[in-house]
């Protein structure tokens, strides 16, 4: 791999050695004009970033972390107002002329955006877009720009730089697109890199690779990085210093070590407590994933002594014997035998087999976590279990009835569906915006003929009580509720027919961590109280760890490994499961360093 720093030979190098921070932000205020009023998005922010340093700005949605960072380069919509002082190497950029600002953008300060899907222009090749940046800020010939662009694509470790250069964004995978985006950002050796949720849209294994890449680049280029994220794991992996934002203000700043190990502000503590911690489970059965993985794969680590690791493993084994899960003897509520599921062919697009040879059993009262990355087929199984997708081969039994032969509109399927509730991923789009939420909750009961009139109203109120929403909310519309409240409504709706099986498809992935923690707790309590079986589909291993008794790992349409939580977390057998576990970042800088080393070792052994 090339370690050469690609750059304009001009002023780049000299400024960096100069003392003083690369970026100084003093009393930055950002307001948005809404209905002729100024609504503050960021209040009185003051921070600085040095060369070669990663400052993470952490906060939940609406905290103003993105808006304040975009304001540095004047990238906010025209209804915004920015005041304060922003100094880049001592020069003010808020007061810079448009021409000067254009010179700074892309050249001195570059941005990596969240969605690699939409942040690159779909109608131009990756090469065109990088060359465009290069030739804008450097006086070089097209041929030379192409050479540099290819070197950049090589530097971000794209497998085939030549091919990537000629590709349109839609021809690359999400991770490759983000690499291309990073290559473009680095094209002029920026002094400051603003990374706005750079890995949020990516799978964990890809995320781990992108984080590695960013760390290497930081070391090579010595740029200052402002990392904006809501993910504490990502922060622990990359950040040197952290600023925690809440409702437009920075509530706490400190080194990564200080924030994680000795948080001062209440909000920081609450935020850290809300982050699900893989291996922590429900608090009683802690699993040291790093040690377990090291044991399972016979890997030696440098940062952790051999004895120390051994001690931890022994501890693990001791715990392991205690936790024996009895096999249930009752009839399963969901049983998949050699199931294949296809998306039927559409025109010229051939049928796509999303799931192949899946065997899975869910017993009453069991919570099964179905984990996998995008495209693994986990959602497909969840949908098929509710009869939303036809089964192409094998048998799929729901509450004792084989639904694999049923047509999607058949009456028999309708009967089976009464026993199954489903919670969808996006609470905003899975509730009818024109129906008051009381009606959304009551509809399944009304349609099934379970209750109507006064009886129905009572049931709706009872359900609202169960999901801890005020009864008065029944007449509200979805847009009047927050994301977490909407998802509570989704859960209430799924519970309304007292299902034997609940299919939850990423119910918390669209929510902030603190909200997620509350919704998960509610879900857990309801499950214990009502005793329904649950198929919990998610990409987030830490969430599964909190909820599930039994974990099922999927990759590319196949179930690669399944077992009890302890089996999967303590003794993962399949290499993919091991990779997946190693890729989940831990919200703890110290442990994350160990984890990183382990991941690298695993990678090296599989290569």
């Amino acid at each position, binding site marked *: 791999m090339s370690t050469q720093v690609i750059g304009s030979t001009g002023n780049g190098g000299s400024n960096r050695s100069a003392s003083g921070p690369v970026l100084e932000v003093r009393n930055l205020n950002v307001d948005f004009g809404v209905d002729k009023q100024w609504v503050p998005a960021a209040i009185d922010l003051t921070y600085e970033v040095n060369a070669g340093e990663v400052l993470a700005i952490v906060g939940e949605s609406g905290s103003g972390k993105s808006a304040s960072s975009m304001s540095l380069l004047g990238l906010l919509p025209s209804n915004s107002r920015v005041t304060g002082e922003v100094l880049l190497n001592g020069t003010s950029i808020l007061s810079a002329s448009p021409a000067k600002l254009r010179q700074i*953008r892309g050249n001195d300060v*570059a941005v990596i955006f969240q*969605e690699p899907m*939409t942040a690159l*222009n*779909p*109608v131009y090749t990756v090469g065109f877009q990088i060359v465009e940046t290069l030739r*804008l800020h450097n006086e070089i010939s097209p041929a030379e720009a192409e050479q540099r662009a290819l070197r950049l694509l090589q530097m971000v470790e794209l497998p085939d730089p030549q091919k990537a250069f000629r590709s349109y964004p839609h021809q690359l995978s999400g991770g490759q697109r983000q690499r291309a985006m990073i290559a473009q950002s680095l094209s002029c050796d920026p002094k400051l890199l603003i990374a706005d949720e750079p890995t949020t849209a990516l799978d964990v294994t890809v995320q781990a690779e992108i984080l590695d890449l960013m760390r290497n680049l930081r070391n090579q280029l010595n740029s200052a990085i402002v990392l904006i994220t809501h993910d504490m794991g990502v922060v622990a992996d990359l950040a040197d210093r952290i600023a925690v934002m809440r409702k437009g203000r920075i509530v706490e700043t400190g080194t990564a070590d200080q924030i994680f190990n000795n948080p001062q502000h209440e909000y920081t503590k609450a935020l850290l407590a809300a982050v699900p911690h893989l291996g922590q489970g429900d608090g009683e059965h802690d699993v040291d994933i790093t040690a377990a993985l090291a044991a399972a794969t016979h890997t030696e680590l440098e940062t952790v002594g051999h004895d120390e690791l051994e001690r931890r493993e022994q501890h693990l084994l001791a715990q392991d014997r205690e936790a024996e899960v009895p096999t249930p003897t009752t009839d399963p509520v969901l049983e998949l035998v050699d199931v294949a599921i296809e998306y039927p062919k559409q025109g010229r697009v051939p049928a796509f087999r999303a799931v192949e040879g899946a065997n899975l059993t869910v017993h009453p009262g069991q919570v099964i976590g179905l984990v996998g990355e995008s495209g693994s087929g986990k959602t497909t199984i969840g949908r098929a279990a509710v009869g939303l997708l036809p089964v192409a081969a094998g048998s799929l039994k729901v509450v004792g009835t084989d639904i694999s032969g049923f047509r999607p509109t058949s009456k028999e399927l309708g009967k089976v569906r009464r026993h199954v509730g489903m919670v969808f991923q996006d609470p905003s789009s899975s509730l009818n915006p024109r129906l008051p939420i009381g009606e959304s909750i009551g509809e399944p009961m009304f349609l099934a003929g379970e209750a109507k009139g006064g009886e129905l109203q009572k049931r709706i109120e009872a359900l609202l009580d169960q999901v801890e929403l005020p009864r008065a909310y029944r007449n509200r519309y979805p847009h009047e509720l927050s994301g977490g409240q909407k998802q509570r409504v989704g859960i209430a709706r799924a519970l309304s027919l007292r299902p034997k099986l609940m299919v939850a498809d990423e119910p918390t992935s669209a929510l902030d961590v603190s909200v997620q923690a509350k919704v998960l707790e509610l879900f857990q309590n309801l499950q214990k109280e009502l005793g329904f079986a649950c198929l919990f589909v998610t990409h987030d291993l830490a969430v599964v760890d909190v909820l599930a008794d039994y974990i099922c790992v999927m990759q590319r349409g196949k179930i690669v490994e399944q077992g009890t939580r302890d089996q999967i977390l303590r003794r993962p057998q399949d290499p993919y499961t091991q990779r997946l576990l190693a890729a989940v970042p831990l919200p703890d800088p110290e442990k994350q360093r160990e984890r990183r080393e382990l991941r690298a070792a695993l990678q090296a052994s599989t290569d």
Partner: protein
Amino acid sequence: MAWYIVRRFLQLIPVFLGATLLVYFLVFSLPGDATAAICGERGCTPAVVAGLREQYNLDEPFWIQYLLYLKGVLTFDLGTNFSGRPIATIIAEVFPTTARLAIMALVIEAVFGILFGLVAGLRKGKIFDSSVLILSLVVIAVPIFVLGFLMQFLIGVKLQWTSPTVSGDATFTELLLPAVVLGLVSFAYVLRLTRTSIIENVNADYVRTATAKGLSRRRVVSVHVLRNSLIPVVTFLGADLGALMGGAIVTEGIFNVNGVGNTLYRAVLNGDGPMVVSIVTFLILIFCLANLLVDLLYAWLDPRIRYA
């Protein structure tokens, strides 16, 4: 890409067959005897009628008539109309005029529609945007014959900037006014479509990326915003080209343009079945080709379609 073109071409075949069949069936099932239309008020002798029925295959069942007609089309023999003139000659005579008129109208609506739409979209909510929107609404709301007569009277008769009617030569200056009238309504649609599309794209993530790269506003708009925004506009323009080529019966009538629309109108009035069917067939062909052109343009503008 080659495969894409071939596929699009093959798709034209069923469209062409289906459309001609429909038109042929409609004309066939019109009430009244076709020979009566030829013979006019005085009527013909039974022998002549029999001869005519023989000539136009009127005694054959519908399917045979249609297949015989298709055979004629495929061998470039469109037959004669009821007055005995070869239909191909008539089309060759009137089509160039209509084509010129259509292309002029298309250029006018495309250039001005996209330009005004672009500026309005970039200045959303400002005075220019609002006034252009109201103006376009007026243009869409007023019937074309009102617009046509009004402009003919004002510019042709009162101001005398151009001739109010079009002569047989159909020169560029003579066609300018009808082209403006013809393009005016579509201009309003193109404008609105472009405006909406621009507003949508100006806030897209990749536009922010382009700005963050340090590109000038001009380049961001012309290279990154415009090309993405033109995709829906091109679809509309292509469909419109087909419609314009079909001749504008009203506009051609007002300005006395000897084009396809006028000819078709007369053929319908005279109950001249073969003529109507042939012209409509020709128009279907033109429409299909215009759509093919759109599909190609589409693929050129959007690589996601090209490599699908």
